[in-house]
């Protein structure tokens, strides 16, 4: 494939993203918003108009957060698949989502831990511990010891353990649990400017860091021995990659809750479009991730209008069959 083709793909994806974003700003509103109101609220903001207010105060931060969430999760999935050379690797498959959920559930329900740490920190610590355990169990730190099945099995086992513990916590502390349940489903409905302000600096830093990692990821695909011979510091790359994954997933989860499957699906879609070169397919994956989450967020208002369905649930509906397809494709 040639360079102009890549450029075209990126341009088309970006146009699709912009179109979906514009659609997201007015579609399926409980209070009707005209398409032109969106434009007017940006150019001639009228503080008395409810629809302008909704676009400015609710829709815009929600849309921007959705886009960033998609980009971050897609990037995290890409890094994980690159580091482990495992096509099934993704934050939701390898236990990070479940670990972060457990961390949040513990902090928000156990009186002993009240105020011990912020929920976002708890999500990051929980996700980090789970990821560490999965990497150790899957023996992914050992050079050459990178059995694909083992890593996924370890991820599934740790996920199941964390999910069981989360459920236990939720059952024991039913009163505080409603919030945890909302959060577990992953929804963008409560994303406001405040959420955005806490989120974007870390997310952008993570995305930028990921772009720096792409040359090493490319070399890693040749096999760890080759990569090392070509001058890649394996341990440093793995540590830096893992740190980026935790940063991206942890901040995302604390902003909007547990949204799965983006990290799994999007890298495959991107690879299908532009091939194996991480330097090109990572930016495409970011754009595609943003597009998919924006679409899911729009649908989240449509499915049981006028109520909201969590975007995470919609993505799981798309993601679960895709996961099964990937597994079958590998074994057959």
């Amino acid at each position, binding site marked *: 494939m040639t360079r102009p083709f890549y450029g075209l793909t990126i341009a088309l994806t970006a146009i699709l993203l912009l179109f979906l974003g514009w659609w997201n700003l007015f579609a399926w509103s*409980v209070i009707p918003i005209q398409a032109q109101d969106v434009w007017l609220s940006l150019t001639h903001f009228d503080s008395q108009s*409810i629809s302008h207010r*909704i676009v400015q105060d609710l829709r815009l931060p929600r849309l921007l957060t959705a886009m960033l969430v998609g980009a971050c999760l897609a990037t995290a999935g890409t890094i994980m698949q690159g580091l482990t050379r495992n096509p099934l690797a993704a934050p939701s498959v390898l236990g990070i989502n479940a670990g972060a959920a457990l961390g949040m559930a513990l902090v928000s329900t156990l009186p002993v831990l009240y105020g011990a740490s912020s929920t976002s920190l708890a999500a990051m610590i929980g996700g980090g511990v789970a990821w560490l355990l999965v990497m150790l169990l899957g023996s992914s730190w050992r050079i050459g010891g990178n059995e694909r099945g083992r890593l996924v099995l370890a991820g599934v086992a740790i996920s199941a353990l964390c999910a069981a513990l989360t459920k236990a916590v939720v059952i024991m502390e039913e009163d*505080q649990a409603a*919030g945890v349940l909302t959060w577990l489903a992953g929804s963008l409905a409560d994303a406001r400017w405040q959420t955005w302000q806490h989120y974007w600096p870390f997310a952008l830093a993570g995305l930028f860091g990921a772009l720096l990692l792409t040359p090493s990821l490319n070399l890693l695909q040749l096999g760890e021995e080759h990569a090392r011979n070509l001058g890649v510091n394996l341990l440093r790359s793995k540590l830096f990659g893992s740190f980026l994954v935790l940063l991206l997933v942890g901040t995302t989860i604390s902003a909007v809750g547990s949204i799965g499957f983006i990290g799994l699906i999007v890298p495959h879609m991107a690879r299908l479009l532009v091939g194996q070169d991480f330097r090109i397919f990572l930016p495409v994956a970011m754009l595609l991730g943003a597009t998919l989450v924006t679409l899911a967020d729009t649908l989240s208002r449509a499915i049981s209008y006028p109520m*909201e369905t969590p975007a995470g649930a919609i993505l799981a509906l798309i993601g679960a069959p895709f996961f099964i397809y990937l597994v079958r494709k590998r074994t057959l």
Partner: protein
Amino acid sequence: MLMSRFKQLGLLLCSVLLAANVHAVTVEDSKGSFSLDYAPQRIVVLEFSFADALAAVGITPVGIADDKDKNRVLPEVRDIIGDWQSVGTRSQPSLEVIASLKPDLIIADISRHEAVYDDLKKIAPTLILPSRRETYSDNLKAAAIIGKIVGKEQAMQERLALHRDKMANIAKQLPSQATVQFGVARADALFLHTSDSYAGGVIQALGMQTPQSDRDDSAYRQTSLEQLLAINPNYFIVGHYTEPSIVDKWRKEPLWQVLQAVQNKHIYSVNPNVWSRCRGIMAAEHMAKDLLAIFNKS
């Protein structure tokens, strides 16, 4: 002499049989027909609404699934029934503790306890009625059934008549055209109690309006600020389960100021435990008094 002895014995037998017949009652519960041929003395209830119904006819249950927190039982109910043994949470009552109390009647909730219904029946006869997500009229029907089964049908009917009088009396003092919306606020979610909910039913019973929902749905509905704006009730009554709750977060947002109830300063706080968990004759009267206080103030 001997004949008169026989006569006396016969009379005694007759009266014993009659008495037994008086206690043999059959009612329709959520699982069909339920009969009891004695007046229960040791009753365990697994929802607050059932404790309310027992208190209405002056009966003290031996055990209540009170979520291990006695303060969750309505104060008016506590004053009547005195002390009881906790049998755990309403969602997961402890079967061991229930069995240890040797009850002769268990009253369970069809919504929460259908899964353990067979286990409960092994411990004692179990009357299963709606409680969670029930409507106001469901609740009064359940109270009447409980009154009948504990052998206090007359007393319960009198209490229900008194209740209707009290509610009608308060309704006269409340504005009939106002739309009143109740919701409970947690740290990151607001759940509105719709027209079909218990609180919605109490508001309607007091002659006021609840906002029409455009779809037929359950009693409790999670609601975003935007959806709340679309409902835009005249009066918004909030029970805060935590402080600060999501409603406190929304107060800082410009859109909050667009709400009719905010502009007219018609937002009030009530006790979420009484308004959302308790349900029952005395709970409804408590809620009516809260509303009266709110409308007298405004």
